[in-house]
């Protein structure tokens, strides 16, 4: 009898300890989200994802702001020019309209490869959210014909799987 009581007590104590230990984790998973950010490989051949945690409040903006900051791993390189700022994000019926400031164009380094990596790092990162299928990029409220003179950006874009290098 005594043993049984002790066992129950032990279980109760353990449950409390478990709750105490994992509570911050549970709380954090409620307020923070894990997102995949796509950056360029150093040889500019592919996009590869880096996982980061961002606050759930303002999820899309936080995600893009992390993307603008650039990668943490030295084997990856940034895809969005310095000085670029998010102005507005609007998600509607699977289409994300992302409005950036002029720096996205002005500070861009050019090249077909450079342009593709920039655009699809944004598109692939955003379409990783289940509710987003298409991305339209605008600059200071205006649709743009092109970013660096190769891609046509007046139409929404969808994910580019071919550019993605899978995690090893």
């Amino acid at each position, binding site marked *: 009898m005594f043993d049984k009581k002790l066992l129950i007590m032990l279980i109760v104590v353990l449950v409390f300890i478990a709750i105490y230990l994992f509570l911050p984790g549970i709380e954090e998973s409620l307020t923070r989200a894990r997102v995949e950010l796509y950056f360029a490989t150093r040889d500019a051949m592919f996009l590869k994802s880096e996982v980061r945690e961002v606050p759930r409040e303002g999820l899309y903006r936080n995600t893009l702001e992390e993307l603008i900051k650039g990668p943490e791993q030295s084997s990856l390189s*940034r895809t969005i020019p310095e000085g670029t700022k998010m102005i507005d994000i609007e998600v509607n019926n699977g289409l994300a309209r992302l409005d950036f400031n002029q720096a996205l164009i002005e500070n861009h380094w050019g090249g077909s490869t450079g342009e593709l990596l920039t655009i699809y790092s944004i598109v692939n990162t955003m379409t990783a959210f289940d509710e987003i299928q298409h991305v339209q990029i605008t600059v200071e409220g205006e649709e743009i014909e092109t970013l660096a003179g190769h891609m046509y950006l007046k139409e929404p874009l969808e994910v580019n799987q071919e550019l993605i290098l899978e995690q090893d």
Partner: protein
Amino acid sequence: MSRWGLYISILLIPLFLFTTFVTATETAEIFFNDQEISEQLDPRLNGGDIMVRARNLAEHLQAVTSWISALNTLTISRGDTVIKLMEGSSYIQVDSRSYKVKQGLIMINGSSYVPLKEVATELGFLYERQGSTIYLNKPETQVKGIRWQNGGKRVLIEMDKLAPYRVNPTDNSNELIIELDRVALAPDFKDGISSNDFYLKVNKVPNRARLQFSINSKYPLPFKQEIGLEEDGNNLLLRFLPQINTITFQNGELKITANGQLEEPETFLLQEPRRLVLDIPGLMLSDYQLELPENELIEDIRVSQFSYDPIVLRVVMELKEDSYLDLVESADGNTITLSPTRITRVANLKCEAQQLSFISDYPLKPDIFTLKDPERLVINIMNALKGDLAKEISVEGELIKGIRSSQFNAETVRIVVDLEKETGFNWSEMETEDGFKYTVLLDNSFEKMILADGDNSTNINISLDSSASYEVKKFSYPDRIAVDIEGINIQGALNLPEPEGLVKSVRALQLSDEPKIGRIVFELEEYHDHSVLSLNPDETISISLLRGEKTAGSDIIVLDPGHGGFDPGAIGPSGLMEKVVNLDISLKVRDILKREGYQVEMTRDDDTFLSLKERVELANQLDALIYVSIHANSSYSRHSEGSEFFIAPHKTADSLLLADMIRKEFIDTVKLYDRGIKRDDLYVIKGTRMPAVLVEVAFLSNSHEEALLESDLFRQKAAKAISEGIIKYLGKIK
């Protein structure tokens, strides 16, 4: 009794009229797409609403009616919309909603009458009422917005489909009215042009679904209908004329710049005070900057809008004693340069047949124009002295009556040709052992014009007496091709060909007198595509109008050097610009291919900016055999390197073969890291209708490769690889 009966009836008639539920009205007029249909609809005015016979309304609106007598219900359906009305009920049901109307379905003489406004509107038609006149229309296009582009040089009207359009002439140069037919404003229509200086007013023209966009400006609007209106896909583009930006005097040269392409100015010298006048056609006045430091040539400069029709900007330079200025050909189209010049001597004036010639010590630019009453041609040569020139020379022939020459003033020689009738002209320059020979050819007119209809195309051939510059333009509503030919005078008795094939009618008009431009307009039965087959300038202008689907295509290789003009493309760590590399390699490729006997066209062969769309259009219009766009690559990472080849994912195997042939040559000759063939939707390779490849030669962002791209030897290697690849590809497909 009968008299009383009459009185009573007279009293009762108006009473009857007022109390009758439904009154026949004589005044309600109903128009559908411009056509009056009042009689068929038999409109009845009922408490201010108009009721019409349902069956006939449905017929016009292409709707279907059915009557369910058990329910006394009428159903009108069109497409997905179903409207139900029940006799005696004032509710109208549209699909799954219903609402109350003043008067629902009523029966008159066994026919059902329905409220016109509700039924027409619910079926998707525009209903507009003016007094007792009703206009029904079906808008086909929504206007999404209107906004500025290119820093205020263009206005874009965005539509979901190109609507019939026209620009209405106004007497007010501060106002521009654009009319669009069969359109409605989108619910989220954006007016992006109204500001302190501009004001947009949208008027609805009720007798059709027509909108008038009136743009009012504080200043005269620099717009000219014939050259300012352009279709841009579904949108309409209004190009404004360039405006003067700056006048600067620097290093002994005077430069006039504008925010757009400048046309050739006319110059003439006037005396007391001695001044040089520059009339620049198609240029508008604006707040320009003047920088005129103290100098030996020019005392003062004044600028005015000399005329609005045609548009001419006049720059008057007050010259100092003994200074002579002359126009210099300028490489950049937005600048006119004037520099000091020498006095030349004009001599040896001759006339043979309808050709006039003279020689000069130094190169000059004659100012040639025609005058009327009596008809004559005047050649003014500035900064010139009359050398060995006979005062009058005798002539033969039907056109020229006589030729006189004179020292018009201290610095201008004038040659006057007295003519029997008005004529076109053309001049050319030739360098000789002792100076320069100038030939002025009179009467450049149409020799013949032939329309020939074939299986795939209708061909237009316009033969001229001598070679002329021209422009071919496509207009819509109705579809037509206009050919503007320089130096051509359109006379009344022009022998125009009978319409044939795709050409419905031909007409000719004098587009402008100064400069002399004649326009031939070919109105078309239908339009698919056209290509210009002649050179420019050329003696025979040949245009092929394609019938339906694409034909076999030409043998032209289109090379497209990426970027250019204000768009430098990528820039290397030490400052090398991509546009320079692209152009040089492309020119080298062109030279190699031409040497091998291939036909090559370039999207650009100098440092000018072209939009992606313009590049694609050029290749498609030429119906090119293949298209190769030449670029230098870049990325953020300095480590990226190598040559890369892009093709569009949807394109045929030919694009892949072409890319692979070029790539193999790169591996053999250029020998950089091979990044392989990538399939991506880059605009130029996607939009061109022929096999197309975009070559990224090497990475400018990589210092080592930038140094290579800087060297002539490497550029030559790359050009060799590209041209060899093209030649091998062509060998395979033949």
